[in-house]
């Protein structure tokens, strides 16, 4: 019986080739999107699961205000380095505690120099103490866990780095010089170990772990603090709630001691219910719970929703086409019933048919995944693989689950409809019951089109917002401007200024790509105003090409500019009020002295971060009065657009001065593109999904209209004999679908409006909600739906009525 059913299923597939292809192909696409998501989720969930020993490893998190985005207290991954010692000495369960460098945004890497070879920049070189490999159970290919970091001035390489640097993993005893900044003399470290790359990704990822000796001790002066990641391994996995209570008690004592040695009072700081905080979280949960950024799951939510929708659209096609063709199968059901078939047997038969199709789609999907995975990896900056996946078995189980789910979802309803046919009415030639499922089919078609139209509207608005952003006036000239990763050093700067083609050399703490905000509070006419302070050199504002709105910007001609003048941006000026050029304000410095500053100019706001953030009210100053700050920005403005040769000359100067550290720079054009990158990636993905979803819905509609036209062949023939024109018949078929598409549009509008509004609110600089995409989506959806249906309807309309009538 099973064999025969399978045979019939195959014959049916061949008989309805187009229909089967649409069904299977569509489902394969839907599945592919979904399986990619599965792969990605599995990847993200696999963080820090590479060794069973990791279940006893915990990350320490401390509540503090150091380097938090808003300078207020939050739970942080980085903790005061003294906490490592606290845990080591006071927590008996702790077998090992280690301190290790955090991934700082502003450190792209260190320069590695081997003998006389050219230096190479290498990211993720992290300094730690002797206990790192006691906490993290890496497998040593060379050297051993207990010996590797026994002595300071040692370095342990990842297998891949060893091979990249030396071409082999047999590198014990070799020397690598690590240069951490431009003018660093460098530290020579001896390779004492090589560890294998674990199967799964790690939240503390590294290319090399060094023990320079810096992490061995904490700052001696109690007012100096050093922040780093702290991890501990306990003797058994513990209840974090209980553990955290113990830690909290320990920490309060620790904090009291620390504050009293800093000559501060614990009770002054922690009052009104404010409490210090220290806790652990299992290392496995670290990746899913980043302190500030959205967790991967939050970020992925819209994508998960979209791929689920895509799968749904293809499943809907499946259901619609199956119920539509049920008319053809009705006779088979009727006959089988009078031959003695149970209803359940028939249900099984139809389920087998949908299972057959899902199996084929699943295989297609696996092929598709292989094809699109490289692009996907590129897009999401991951390295996923289907076949070389450590979780292949789990994947196969998930795929099987998905297969069963899709088969039931897609096959059960049609199977139920079909097996419920009443034999008498069918055998009497009365197919009225074939109309069963039409209501559901209509609902599903509407649903499909709601998804598609919402997508079309969304990409319309998203495109408009993207256009707006890439054309928006940034407030500075981003062309012919590069930013060298270096602070301002007079000798080097002077040399650069002599190179023909170089117009300005300057530094600022605020430029697109690298911004270091220093908050301050000033007093103006008795009011406190919160500002962001940016330290610049004389040439920085001209180098950026900012626009002056009132007054002037800094210049060498004015002696006063090195004493106490400031320039405000528009946002800051608005906080001060009108007619402020020449006015002064005061700022109390850390010693309690009030410094007076004079406002000499107002510039147009210029963007230095993505458009999701508004430009902060900012004060620019050259003077060192009230303290300065600096970061690694060295702006070079060229007076020619063919500046590649000039850069070559700059590099030559660099090499002469800093032979151990390679020069790095970005053009401001690139920095700008990078600020748009995340958004563009998201928009591109939405566009891709929309195209797939819309095409699937149209294919579904196409197939559906085929069946409807077929079912009505006789009616069409009769109408033609009675004198209906082809056009009238095409309209007849179109009408029923057109109503569905219009209903779908009406439903989509509010949904799209709400979703898009929310998306736009994520941008500080955004377009007003446009009407055009809504109207365009409606017109487009109607036009393509009509075209799709008309192709089929025309075919039915122009066919010779005699054939249809003779056949009956």
């Amino acid at each position, binding site marked *: 019986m099973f064999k025969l059913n399978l045979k019939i299923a195959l*014959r049916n597939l061949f008989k309805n080739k187009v229909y089967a292809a649409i069904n299977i192909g569509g489902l394969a696409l839907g599945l592919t999107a979904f399986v990619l998501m599965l792969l990605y989720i599995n990847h993200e969930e696999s963080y820090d699961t590479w060794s069973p020993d990791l279940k006893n490893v915990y990350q320490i998190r401390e509540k503090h205000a150091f380097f938090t985005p808003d300078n207020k207290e939050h739970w942080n991954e980085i903790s005061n380095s003294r906490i490592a010692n606290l845990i080591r000495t006071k927590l008996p369960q702790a077998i090992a505690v280690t301190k290790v460098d955090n991934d700082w945004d502003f450190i792209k890497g260190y320069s590695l120099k081997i003998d006389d070879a050219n230096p190479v920049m290498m990211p993720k070189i992290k300094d730690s103490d002797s206990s790192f490999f006691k906490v993290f159970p890496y497998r040593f290919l060379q050297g051993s866990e207990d010996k590797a970091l026994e002595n300071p001035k040692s370095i342990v390489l990842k297998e891949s780095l060893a091979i990249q640097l030396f071409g082999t993993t047999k590198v014990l005893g070799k020397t690598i010089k690590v240069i951490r900044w431009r003018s660093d003399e460098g530290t020579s470290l001896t390779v004492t170990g090589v560890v294998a790359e674990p199967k799964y990704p790690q939240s503390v990822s590294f290319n090399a772990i060094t023990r320079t000796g810096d992490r061995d001790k904490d700052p001696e002066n109690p007012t100096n603090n050093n922040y780093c990641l702290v991890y501990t391994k306990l003797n058994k996995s513990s209840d974090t709630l209980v553990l955290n209570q113990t830690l909290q008690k320990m920490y309060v004592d620790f904090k009291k001691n620390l504050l009293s040695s800093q000559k501060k009072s614990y009770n002054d700081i922690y009052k009104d219910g404010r409490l210090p905080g220290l806790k652990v979280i299992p290392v496995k949960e670290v990746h899913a719970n980043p302190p500030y950024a959205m967790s991967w799951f939050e970020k992925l939510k819209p994508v998960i929703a979209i791929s689920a929708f895509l799968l749904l659209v293809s499943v809907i096609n499946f259901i619609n086409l199956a119920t539509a063709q049920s008319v053809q199968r009705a*006779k*088979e059901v009727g006959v*089988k019933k*009078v*031959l*003695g*078939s*149970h209803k359940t047997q028939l249900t099984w038969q139809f389920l087998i048919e949908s299972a057959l199709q899902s199996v084929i789609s699943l295989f297609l999907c696996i092929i598709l995944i292989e094809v699109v995975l490289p692009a996907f990896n590129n897009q999401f900056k991951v390295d996923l693989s289907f076949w070389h996946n450590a979780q292949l078995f789990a994947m196969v189980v998930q795929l099987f689950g998905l297969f069963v789910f899709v088969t039931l979802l897609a096959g059960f309803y049609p199977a139920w409809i079909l097996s419920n046919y009443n034999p008498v009415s069918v*055998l009497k030639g009365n197919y009225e019951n074939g109309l069963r499922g039409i209501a559901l089919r209509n609902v599903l078609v509407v649903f499909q089109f709601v998804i598609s139209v919402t997508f079309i509207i969304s990409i319309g608005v998203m495109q408009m917002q993207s256009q707006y952003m890439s054309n928006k006036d940034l407030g500075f000239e981003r062309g012919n401007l590069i930013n060298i990763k270096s602070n301002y050093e007079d000798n080097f700067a002077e040399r650069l200024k002599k190179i023909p083609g170089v117009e300005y050399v300057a530094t600022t703490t605020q430029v697109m790509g690298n911004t270091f905000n220093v908050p301050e509070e000033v007093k103006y006419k008795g009011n406190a105003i919160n500002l962001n302070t940016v330290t610049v050199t004389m040439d920085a504002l001209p180098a950026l090409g900012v626009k002056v709105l009132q007054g002037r910007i800094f210049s060498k001609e004015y002696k006063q500019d090195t004493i106490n003048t400031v320039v405000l941006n528009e946002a800051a000026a608005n906080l001060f009020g009108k007619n402020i050029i020449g006015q002064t304000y005061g700022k109390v410095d850390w010693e309690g002295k009030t410094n007076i500053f004079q406002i000499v100019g107002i510039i147009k706001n210029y963007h230095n971060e993505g458009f999701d953030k508004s430009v902060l009210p900012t004060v620019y100053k050259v003077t060192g009065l009230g303290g300065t700050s600096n970061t690694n920005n060295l702006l070079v403005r060229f007076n020619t657009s063919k500046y590649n040769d000039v850069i070559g000359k700059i590099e030559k100067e660099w090499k002469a001065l800093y032979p151990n550290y390679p020069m790095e720079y970005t053009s401001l054009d690139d920095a700008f593109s990078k600020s748009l990158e995340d958004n563009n990636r998201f928009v591109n993905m939405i566009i891709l999904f929309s195209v797939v979803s819309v095409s699937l819905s149209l294919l579904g509609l196409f197939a559906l209209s085929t069946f409807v036209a077929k079912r009505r062949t006789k009616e069409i023939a009769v109408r033609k004999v009675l004198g209906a024109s082809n056009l009238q018949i095409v309209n007849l078929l179109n009408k029923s679908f057109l109503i569905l598409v219009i209903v779908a549009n009406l439903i989509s509008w509010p949904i799209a409006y709400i979703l898009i509004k929310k998306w736009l609110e994520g941008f500080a600089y955004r377009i007003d909600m446009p009407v055009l995409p809504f109207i365009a989506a409606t017109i487009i959806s109607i036009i393509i739906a009509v075209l799709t249906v008309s192709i089929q309807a025309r075919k039915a309309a122009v066919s010779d009525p005699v054939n249809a009538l003779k056949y009956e």
Partner: protein
Amino acid sequence: MVGRQIVLRFKRPNLQPSAFLPSTLKKMIELKNIEKYYANKGIKHYVLRHVTTTIKQGEFVSIMGPSGAGKSTLLNILGMLEEPTYGTYEFFGEDVTTLNERKRIELYRNHIGFVFQAYHLIDEMTVYENIEAPLLYKKVGSSERASRIANLLDRFNIVAKKDLFPNQLSGGQQQLVGIARALAAQPSVILADEPTGNLQSTQAEEIMQLFKKLNQEDGITIIQVTHSEKNAEYGNRILHIADGVVKEDVLVR
């Protein structure tokens, strides 16, 4: 699927290849006061009224009457495809007026074979598979299945067509397959609604000869609906129906 055997209160008829005298035969079908109406806007439209009759095992009954008289309805009731609105129907002494699905399927598998005017072969199955289908439902072993099908194909002269699909056959050939399929499960009765309605007279004659032979040589009870006086005479009894009432019940010859 585990076949659930139900025990009916009768034995399989002992079929003998010779003609029977109707009076000595066992009662197969007993209809008492069967009524069937369709209610439309509160008005009952009677299709069948007070139909009371008995059909014995081995009879060959033809039902005749004008169009719309209720012949198909009666046959459907006999085949348990429809339920009467009133009256009782006994099949081999058992009340089958209302049956649950499981019991009805049991009867289809073992006792009743249908032949349709529109043949109703399954388009996706070959001739062979069409004939095989009821045997699969009946869970007949594969060797037994093969020999029965071979036998039927041989008897109906369609061995050469066994791998063709229904749309590759003529109407008459399709009806032969339809009959072969009905016979495959070795039913006690064959119900045929205008089996030759779509056929030319020579083909129709062939089918009628076949029915006669099946009835006389294999002892299979046959009940057919027909419009043709000539076809009706192949049987041994004719029920004339008009306006839902049995007007005449005559024995042939």
